[in-house]
């Protein structure tokens, strides 16, 4: 599997799952994909269909309404697929922690592999998270 994992690490196609964020993290993700950071250097590419995805970038506290949809997106993605939680929201709930419709156990909805701290995190922090993921894949 080592050989395959190294191929996978060099070609992570990301899919953007917007699970009730305040929208700031989404904007930062778009920043990440601009020519300034140029993640295509590492083979990272934004894809529009979840069937093509290797990494799901989940932003936002997953609330009751989107939870089934997020679950379904995860199930629709061909495995192996990795889930990166972008921002403080998926990490800890941020300022929406005690909101009435926030899902309390996000790990039950979708299994996160990496979290990125920050509200919103800088693109550099996201690259750092992806590099950690790549490091795990490379063994």
């Amino acid at each position: 599997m080592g050989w395959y994992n190294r191929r996978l690490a060099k070609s992570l196609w990301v899919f953007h799952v917007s699970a009730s964020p305040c929208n700031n993290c989404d904007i930062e993700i778009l920043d990440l994909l601009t020519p300034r950071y140029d993640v295509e250097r590492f083979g990272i590419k934004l894809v529009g269909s979840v069937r093509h995805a290797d990494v799901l970038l989940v932003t936002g506290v997953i609330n009751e309404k989107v939870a089934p949809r997020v679950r379904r997106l995860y199930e629709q993605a061909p495995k192996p697929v990795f889930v990166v939680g972008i921002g403080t929201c998926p990490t800890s709930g941020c300022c929406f922690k005690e909101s009435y419709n926030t899902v309390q156990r996000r790990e039950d909805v979708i299994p996160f592999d990496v979290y990125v701290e920050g509200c919103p995190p800088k693109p550099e922090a996201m690259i750092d998270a992806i590099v950690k993921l790549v490091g795990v894949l490379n063994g």
Partner: protein
Amino acid sequence: MTAQILFDFFVFPGIVFTAVLGLLAGWVDRKVSARFQYRVGPPLFQNFNDVFKLLGKETILVKTGNRWLFIAAPLAGFAVLSLAATSVGTALFFGRAAGMDLIVLMYLLMFYSVLIVLGGASPGNVFSSLGAGREVKLLLADELPFILACLVPVVRSGYKLDFGAILAYQAGHGMLVASVSGAVAFVVALLAVQAKMALPPFHIPEAETELVAGPFIEYGGPLLAFWKLNQFMMLVVFPFLLILLFWGGFDLRGLGLLWGILKYLLILVLIIIIKNTNPRVRTDTAIAFFWKYLSPLALAAVVLAVLGV
């Protein structure tokens, strides 16, 4: 004889050669596009990594829709393009054409578009069905000027449909693109090829901003890898076809090899430049462009060719 046919089809200039060269051409495409946007761009073997990664992923079949068609379409597309690559390549490099002529090649290339339509329509997804419908419209739009433009070399070489005659004519009389009718037909063919490959500005079926991935939206894993490979192989088949029809062939010996590679790179970069400098056109604009402007132009080129200019 059989061994030679198998070698032609599977190794050179068939599957292996076309796939490897296509993946590298895809890298040139991505790299040049990146430089257009002041980026660095992906590393050399990026497309190989992408395809190997996709081959190792899970295959998901959609519950609704026609599964056999869904699986068969990308594989048949791969077979069709390998066959097209074999015929163009053998004609270009060895003058054999694998027993095929221009008409067969036209059928194969059109059949590939039909396979995209079938594959896109099979899962029953709204977006992919829309993409398939648009692919039909694009096929209707680009087929007429493409056929007319390909008629010019046929007419010039004395109404012969086989590749050998076209190459022999150009060997005797110079490249067709240097004559008036040939130059016009080449421009028309280049634009039609752009549409046949569904590259911008004619990426109407895939239109990632509205149809997400068009006909390929439900494909994932190995089946998607085959579609990707098909797209990369088209980056070899079509430029080689243009070289064969208009640019006087590809000599494998001595300086001819260098000259041939230059021709190929020139056509490839032309395609990439058109791709990067034009925004997507609407379906009706594309059809109007091909039918109102390019088809009469191609017809004029055919008339000129009949007159011998």
